[in-house]
């Protein structure tokens, strides 16, 4: 009789120490690699199985996006200010990084609902769903991103070699998106009001972040908003690194990253201690 003893008590997860909790979650994820892989395989590789064009659908959306940006720029609807390179190339990279951020948020906000098929029947660490959701999103993103890179090359913009740092630069975007998403994921089980609200807020956020326009705006109010918006630096630097090979406002980027890390750590903890209370409302 040397097996592990498991104890279930009320408010159990709250009693775990602050740092210990992260270690527990991290260990759970490491232990569940195989589960993550199996679920990823199921949801990603199978998602296009019942379709004639299969994975080509991943490329359809960036291509449609490119056409619409080129059209809007051509007709003069959008006047983004001087960005130094052909505007469609600029906006393409910019908006796909915004899409990456939104995707991180969406992936995280469906963490618990992604497992709803068997969450009531089997005990397993639900943290793995976050990783699986994110991996699925990244896989979709990178395939589309590849197309975008090819397109900007066609516009005569050669990406900087610094693109190799791209995975590190998008890490804060993940932390921020997932941080907000995890909380929404728990609340969403009880009532969907919050996710509806956040979807609207994210729509607004899109316009106060220099995604489809340049950060060098003349409007004072917008300039202030942009200045204090961490996404300005997180998205801006990821984009500028690819198209200009530059890294601006390093200190602001660092603060924004720390902010993102803080949000993520807090919300991951909150997710962990409150999700078990939420799951019983899933019935």
């Amino acid at each position, binding site marked *: 009789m040397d097996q592990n003893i498991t104890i*279930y*008590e009320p408010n159990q997860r709250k009693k775990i120490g602050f740092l210990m909790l992260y270690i527990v979650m991290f260990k759970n994820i490491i232990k569940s690699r*195989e589960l993550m892989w199996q679920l990823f395989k199921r949801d990603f590789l199978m998602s296009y199985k019942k379709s004639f064009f299969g994975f080509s659908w991943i490329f359809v959306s960036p291509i449609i996006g490119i056409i619409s940006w080129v059209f809007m720029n051509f007709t003069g609807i959008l006047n983004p200010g001087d960005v130094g390179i052909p505007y469609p190339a600029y906006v393409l990279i910019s908006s796909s990084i915004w899409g990456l951020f939104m995707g991180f948020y969406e992936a995280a906000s469906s963490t618990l609902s992604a497992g709803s098929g068997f969450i009531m*029947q089997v*005990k397993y660490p639900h943290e793995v769903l976050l990783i699986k959701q994110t991996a699925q999103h990244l896989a979709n993103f990178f395939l589309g991103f590849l197309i975008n890179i090819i397109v900007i090359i066609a516009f005569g913009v050669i990406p900087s070699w610094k693109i190799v740092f791209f995975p590190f630069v998008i890490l804060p975007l993940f932390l921020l998106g997932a941080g907000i998403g995890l909380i929404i994921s728990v*609340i969403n089980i009880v009532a969907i009001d919050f996710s509806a609200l956040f979807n609207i807020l994210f729509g607004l956020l899109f316009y106060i972040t220099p995604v489809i326009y340049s950060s060098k705006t003349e409007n004072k109010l917008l300039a202030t908003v942009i200045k204090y918006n961490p996404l300005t630096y997180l998205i801006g630097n990821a984009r500028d690194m690819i198209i200009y090979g530059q890294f601006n406002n390093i200190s602001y980027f660092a603060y924004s990253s720390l902010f993102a890390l803080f949000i993520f750590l807090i919300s991951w903890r909150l997710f962990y201690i409150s999700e078990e209370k939420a799951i019983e409302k899933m019935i």
Partner: protein
Amino acid sequence: MQKDTVLKIEGLYKKFCRTLKRSMFYGSIDIAKSMLGIPYNSDNLRKNEFWALENINLELRKGDTLGIIGQNGSGKTTLLRLINGIFPPDKGRITIRGKVGALISIGAGFHPHMTGRENIYLNGTILGMSRKELNKKLDSIIDFADIGDFLDSPVSTYSSGMTVRLGFAIAIHCEPDILIVDEILSVGDINFRNKSLRKMSEYREKANAIIFVSHNLEQVRILCNEVIILDRGKIIFTGSTHEGIVQYQELSRDIRLANFRKPKTNSEIIISRWEGEENGCVEILDIGVCNNENDKINAIEMNSSLNLYCSFNLKKAVKGLFFSFSALNEEYKPCIWVMSNDNNKKSFNNLGCGRYRLLLKINNHHLIPGIYIPNIAIRDSTSGETYERLLPENSFKVKSNGVTLERGIVDVEADWFIMNLS
């Protein structure tokens, strides 16, 4: 915790909410509280809340097979989910030694477009098996599921029986220390069921403990050495399987009896079949069971006498009447059916107007424990006209003597012998 204890539940409570909006409201508050680090008060019930489990105490030792029986909604599944760690308790504590595995998750996470083989790996991983373990058990799982060439076809092309068989085959190969089985041995055909039962009893030798939830009392009787009865979230019985089953049947008989006796709950068709049209000659007032002192009762003992009575109002004088009495079981099948003129035993002639009370005494009714509905027919012996009435709301119960189960139609004494013929 003692050395050979594998599961211990102490003072366990779990509450749920009856209405959706309130449940959402409480859920938001609880989540907000737990996020802010305020311990929520689980001790009291708020409006519209109820205890789904109340003060559950339980201890399982190595080698135990525990049966959990109870009506729908008595808290069985909730208890299993708590033991499985899916819901946190509101009060109390569960201590488990070893890994818990549940056979409640047949085909959890199956993807219809993946092949059977791929789904074995997917589902097996969800159930907590490692790839190495699965590689080793693959042949045995395939063999057990017995789905032949379909193994490499997508699960969406399977019949429902095949899907369940595959799911069950994976789940039963999980081999946890404590196995939870929830009402699944009813799947598949008789061959598959037998195979499952064989595997279960094989497994019983190896596992530390099995918890078995089923409505099939025969299976509980064979597999379990101890049962608990859950009733509205409380354990009302803990003890030997046989005693538990007898008591559970008594409990469910009481519930069924109450349902039968509720007026107008039965199918209109069945009642109208017996009610017929009043022709004005006989009006049947009441039918029922009484004791030797002629008091109306609704429960009688096994192997005792059965006294049936019928009050009727004769509106005009008749030359002769004869009576037919029957007791129908819950499926409306007559179990006892006697007629007053059988073998010319009795004739009731020249009855004038007025109220009568007919009494029928059956010395030993031999009925098994259950619910019975009294039925009477009054016939005119010259014209053959029939006046018939069935009264489900006057049903009565035959109580178990604490030993006998509900099986068959009549209770007889049986002696068993075995002879060696070789």
